[in-house]
């Protein structure tokens, strides 16, 4: 057994795909020597060696022995793993390897937008990141917290940074879940300059915790979504909701909450009904969106649907997803029901007719419709169109009798 290299980054093993492991022993003289194994040697072996050479040169390391076990890592992963390794060598947690974007610029931050589904992506696993946006979630969450092992935290920062810079996230809102406390602030420092829209702050219990995050974000146009995961957090929900102008939504973490309460989490969820309702009220009272926790059993479709119906009935507008297959189900279940859509279409038609006639007052038959009702109806029509439950030619279709 040879000695382990002094510096290491990345992952190796039978299950690893689309990732790589790097080991490095610096030397004072000589060239950069490779001990190189790659699943894609024929197709990209040469290109990969060139890229690594270039990255090491950019950090000022032209000498030493670099061991590479490449299981088909894409360039953004190679860059991230090299960055994580070189940060150790340079003892500089903020040293950055150059990124190479494969998509257009990040769209601007939008405060009011649907957040029905947000797909969790473990921050140290590149293979799930690659096509996440294709599945059409409203948001992706690049997670640096619970899905990343403590020993992998720092290299996950590099991977998340490169993924945010490089991958095509389409129309998804780009969210990052940071760690608690100082580790979370270090996460943000490592992600300085990376394009994202929103930070999920875990286990928030007091407004002051948000102030620290707020300050760390400086003048960046980045939103916040605090996660309430303890009895104290729930009790302080209203104050937390008001604690930062960046807040756009509150969400809840039921595993940690039930642990904090010292009770078992049940499928029915009766034990957290009060906490969830309390959070919904705090959110609505402060003009924020209320977003529910995740449903962990990916294979239990009926259970997932039931939990979505309950969440919607309680006033939640979205749910976390742990698997892309859950996204379409969330969108279906969070969409307005047929009777609601039908009624909303009737109001929307009346509204458009009134506008065409230059009238300010909207009426349906002999009944006048209040502006907030019109606004809600238009939002319902838009949501139904978004969910695909309303045909695009709904205006031409005959309304059913009331």
């Amino acid at each position: 057994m040879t000695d382990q290299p002094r510096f290491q980054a990345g992952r190796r093993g039978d299950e690893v795909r689309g990732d790589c492991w790097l080991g490095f022993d610096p030397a004072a003289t000589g060239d950069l020597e490779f001990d190189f194994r790659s699943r894609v040697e024929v197709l990209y072996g040469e290109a990969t060696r060139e890229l690594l050479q270039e990255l090491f040169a950019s950090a000022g390391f032209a000498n030493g022995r670099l061991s590479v076990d490449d299981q088909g890592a894409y360039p953004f992963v190679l860059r991230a793993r090299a960055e994580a390794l070189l940060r150790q060598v340079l003892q500089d947690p903020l040293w950055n390897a150059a990124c190479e974007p494969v998509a257009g610029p990040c769209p601007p931050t939008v405060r009011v937008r649907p957040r029905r589904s947000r797909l969790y992506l473990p921050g140290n696993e590149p293979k799930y990141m690659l096509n996440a946006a294709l599945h059409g979630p409203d948001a992706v969450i690049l997670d640096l917290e619970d899905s990343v092992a403590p020993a992998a935290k720092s290299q996950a920062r590099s991977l998340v940074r490169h993924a945010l810079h490089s991958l095509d996230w389409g129309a998804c809102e780009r969210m990052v879940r940071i760690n608690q406390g100082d580790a979370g602030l270090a996460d943000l420092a490592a992600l300085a300059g990376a394009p994202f829209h929103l930070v999920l702050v875990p286990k928030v219990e007091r407004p002051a915790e948000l102030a620290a995050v707020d300050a760390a974000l400086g003048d960046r146009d980045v939103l916040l979504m605090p996660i309430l995961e303890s009895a104290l957090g729930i009790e302080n929900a209203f104050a937390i909701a008001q604690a930062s102008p960046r807040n756009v939504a509150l969400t809840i973490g039921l595993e940690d909450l039930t642990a904090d309460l010292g009770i078992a989490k049940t499928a029915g969820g009766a034990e957290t009904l009060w906490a969830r309702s309390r959070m919904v009220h705090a959110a609505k009272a402060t003009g924020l969106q209320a977003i529910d926790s995740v449903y962990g059993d990916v294979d239990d479709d009926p259970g997932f649907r039931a939990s979505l119906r309950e969440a919607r009935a309680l006033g939640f507008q979205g749910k976390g997803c742990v698997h892309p297959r859950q996204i379409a189900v969330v969108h279906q279940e969070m969409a307005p029901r047929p009777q609601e859509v039908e009624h909303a279409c009737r109001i929307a038609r009346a509204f458009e007719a009134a506008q065409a006639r230059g009238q300010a007052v909207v009426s349906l038959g002999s009944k006048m419709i209040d502006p907030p009702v019109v606004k809600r109806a238009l939002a319902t029509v838009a949501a139904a169109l978004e969910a695909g439950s309303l045909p695009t030619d709904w205006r031409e279709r005959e309304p059913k009798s009331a």
Partner: protein
Amino acid sequence: MTTTTASLHNAAGREVPAEINGRPTLPFAGVDGRRPDGRKAAPPIRSCADFPADGDKRVAGLKEALRRAGLRDGMTIGTHHHFRNGDLVANMVFTAAADLGVKNLRWFPSASFPCHAPLLKLLENGTIHHIEGSMNGPLGDYCSQGKMRGMGVLRSHGGRWQAIQDGEVHLDLAVIAAPTADAFGNATGDRGPSACGLLGFAQADAQYADHVIVVTDNLVPFPCVPWQIMGQNVDQVVLVDKVGDPAQIVSGTTVVTRSPDRLRIAEHIAAFVRDAGILREGFSFQAGAGGITLAFTLFLKEMMLEAGVRARFVRGGSNQYLVEMLEEGLTDYILDGQTFDLDGVRSMRENPGHLATSPFTSYNFHGKGNFASMIDVVVLGATEVDVDFNANVVTHSDGRLLHGIGGWQNCLTSRCTVLAVPAVRDRIPVILDRVTTLCGPGELIDVVATEHGLCINPRRTDLVEALRGSKVPLLDIRELKTRIDRLCGGPPAKPRLGEEFVAAIQWVDGTTIDGVRRVVG
């Protein structure tokens, strides 16, 4: 070792070996470019007077049967692959041949699998000269490295039948593994302790080989019914302990994918079939084995229930999901070419709507029509597809020969052919400028379905038109290729290949559509 470097250009613009194992190559002349004439091959005339009047053709042991069959150097032996990776008989045959000291045999399997890796040593010692048939796994790798004495020849299931019928391959001897047989040689695959379903691939061997040996581990008193193989074609019957492991017929073929990207591909194809108007009362489809196509079947089933339509027939590779559709009345028939799991075997035995077919009925170039061209939609896989919709199903992008053609080429004649492929697999792009090996011409491939969306062959303006208003994401295949290249850091380097041809890829009509060169390093 013979090496062939002389080449010809065929109508697809591919370089193919000028000769294949001593025969001049017929270069591919276009999809419908060849019309051979003459008469079909036929086995020698026999007389019943030379066979036992009591119908007992049993012989003690395979070695004795091979000796009686007059096995000698240079002969061609056919075997079938209905046991897929569980076949035990091919190894027995060539081990016995080696014991008899016979050399330079041509093995003509309908496919070979990793379970045949023990035959590598018989390729090394010259018992087997070369393989003409699909090579899955280690045998393909061996061939890729240029170690085989002759050139590998890969044919589709229908192409194998065509080669036998028009004399391109003369079968001296067929050895047919049979899960149940009687002493007269009637045999079936649908019952017995090693039941594997049907024996369709072996029917050409039974009808055209000079000499036919049935090997079984379940001898029943005459008559063995149903007789998928007719005893009238059989010379000898050999009883052995075990012909195959039916548990291995399922390997890698019956697990529905859990990958979200692959499920997305499957769901999009099903939605395409619905939105393009293919899903209608009395339609037909075929979905090959593999995770994506199985998932497609399940999505399609949901859509059939929703739309209230039934299929008239589906073609298998049967599996539990097709069997469920048959049993639930969602299709009138399964026309089965090979059973992919034990539910398929049971259904074939018990359900009169589950029919055993063969490459002759479905895929044969010299037949008077084929079932394959009557199918409304077929969903297949591929290792590579290029921007002209040409596809590869036998080699990887590094040039190594690792898969067989199966019925893939034959299925391309369906009314709508969909290839279900991830656009990239762990930095191995599947969408390329030009496929490493051409197996199917782009003019026969209508849709390439990837996780990024569906690319419709611009020739199929009717499909593009039919999909107006559908939510299935469509994109241009060249745009998709650009997207994948960007992700991978540029287009991949070409495989490192030598000059020598190690294998030829035959088109369904017996012409050569591409050559495979030795992999270097």
